[in-house]
């Protein structure tokens, strides 16, 4: 990784821990997933596999991602724009694309840390005598990280459009909801190309295989492409200051 990207990514990650928001997010995230685990485990009558599948791909998971991605990304550019630090940042010898990459990595690492902390939940299951399929768990986590990366990239883009964190958060929430609605819309569309297209473009369907414990290259490609697309838009949005 080029020097400036690594240095900026480390600062971004550290900045999460210097703000109260990160700790609130971490606490709520673990609380929510702990509760979800409890509820799901009860509902499935103690079926560990079904529980983990639902936890890493079910409605509860998506809900937490819809809240998490805007919360983690809203600050990244909007706050720098509001306080003016974007100017000091972009006049340092670092390229726009490097800034975007570093900020994304900072947010993504924090997101990965949340899931590392989440591992305490399956660890508890093991301690209590359960034996989850570790291979399937790993596949699910790959999906969770890839889908999260795509969400964070979309949130980063929303944050680059405005100088208000609140507007950034709501923009990214709306953006993510619209993309996910495609998956639901597909069900109401008549059989045909349009329906196929909506299914493929929609956000949710691609996680299903991961949740089943399968890492399919097509879905990996989908999320990675999605992530790169939004990172590219973010770089363009930063550059727009030049012709505004």
């Amino acid at each position, binding site marked *: 990784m080029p020097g*400036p990207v690594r240095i900026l990514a480390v600062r971004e990650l550290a900045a999460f821990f210097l*703000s109260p928001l990160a700790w609130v997010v971490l606490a709520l995230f673990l609380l929510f997933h702990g509760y979800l685990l409890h509820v799901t485990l009860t509902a499935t009558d103690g079926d560990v596999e079904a529980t983990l599948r639902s936890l890493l791909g079910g409605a509860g998971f998506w809900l937490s991602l819809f809240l998490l991605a805007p919360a983690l990304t809203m600050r990244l550019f909007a706050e720098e724009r509001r306080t003016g*630090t974007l100017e*000091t940042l*972009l*006049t*340092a*010898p670092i*390229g726009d694309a490097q800034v975007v990459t570093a900020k994304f990595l900072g947010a993504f690492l924090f997101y990965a840390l949340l899931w590392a902390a989440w591992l305490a939940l399956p660890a508890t299951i093991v301690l209590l005598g359960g034996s989850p399929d570790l291979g399937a768990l790993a596949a699910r986590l790959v999906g969770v990280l890839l889908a999260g990366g795509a969400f964070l990239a979309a949130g980063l883009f929303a944050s680059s459009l405005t100088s208000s964190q609140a507007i950034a958060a709501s923009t990214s929430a709306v953006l993510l909801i619209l993309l996910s609605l495609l998956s639901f819309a597909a069900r109401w569309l008549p059989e045909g190309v349009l329906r196929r297209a909506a299914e493929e473009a929609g956000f949710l369907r691609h996680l299903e295989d991961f949740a089943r414990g399968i890492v399919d290259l097509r879905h990996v490609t989908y999320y990675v492409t999605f992530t790169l697309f939004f990172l590219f838009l973010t770089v363009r949005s930063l550059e727009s200051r*030049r012709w505004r």
Partner: protein
Amino acid sequence: MIEVQNLTRTYGPRRAVEDLTFTVRSGEVVAFLGPNGAGKSTTLRILAGYLPPTAGAARVGGRDVVRESKAARRLMGYMPETVPLYPEMTVRGYLRFRARLKGVTPRALPTRLDDVIARCRLQEMTQRPIGMLSRGYRQRVGLADALVAAPPVLVLDEPTAGLDPNQILEVRSLIRSLHQDHAVLYSTHILPEAEAVSDRVLILHRGRLVAQGSPAELRERAGAGPEAILIEGTAPPRDAAAALAQLRPGLAVTVLREAEPLRVRVAGAADVALRASVARLFAERGWTLTELRREAPSLEEVFARLTIGEDV
């Protein structure tokens, strides 16, 4: 070190900067002087690589600020007008981050940090979160950031804005001390400051360069009138006026006040030799001299003359 050629920047139909040409050499402190909204910040932002020019070109250390932007930025320390900083970071943590971002190697880092912290007198504040610092200290952190990678070119946007008089003097002397090994371009709208700190002044008005030169040259060019001496003392008014007029040909002597204390203005020159002659004259005649002052037309006057006639 800084070369600007026919630089123009428009925001939609509004021309913020128009056909600007100037250079700043190494070892020179140059003030960018003009009222608010004259286009100073826009020009400095173009030099810093934050905004591209609409037309014309700018080079820093020979590097084009658009085509070789990163190379140009590597040669420059830039402090934006509002001195934006990250409030949650400590002073030392922030400077360390900025130094590393600007390519200071881990080996050189401690020396560079200690150097700028000492120069900007931040020793007491290194572990404080920036958000808790006063305006004056924040300004110094901004300056330390501009200096931390030891760049040959410094571009400072209103470095003394919002400071108290003591802090203003400190920052001025700091800027003055930088001139040996830097090319410094800083903006201000305060005339005495431009006069006190800089080798050269660029006067910007409505996006155009209306004059440039040393403060003395500008006075001359503006035709702000010759220098004069103001004298206060006790002496017979007519004798004094006559004697003063004979000190040198071409002097215009005006008695401003006949009652005691007498006040006389001698216009035409104000050099040391003439002032010494005035003092000797008073001593020889047994008159009392209570004030002898050189009166130079202020840059304010120069500025007013240079920008007069421009339609408002």
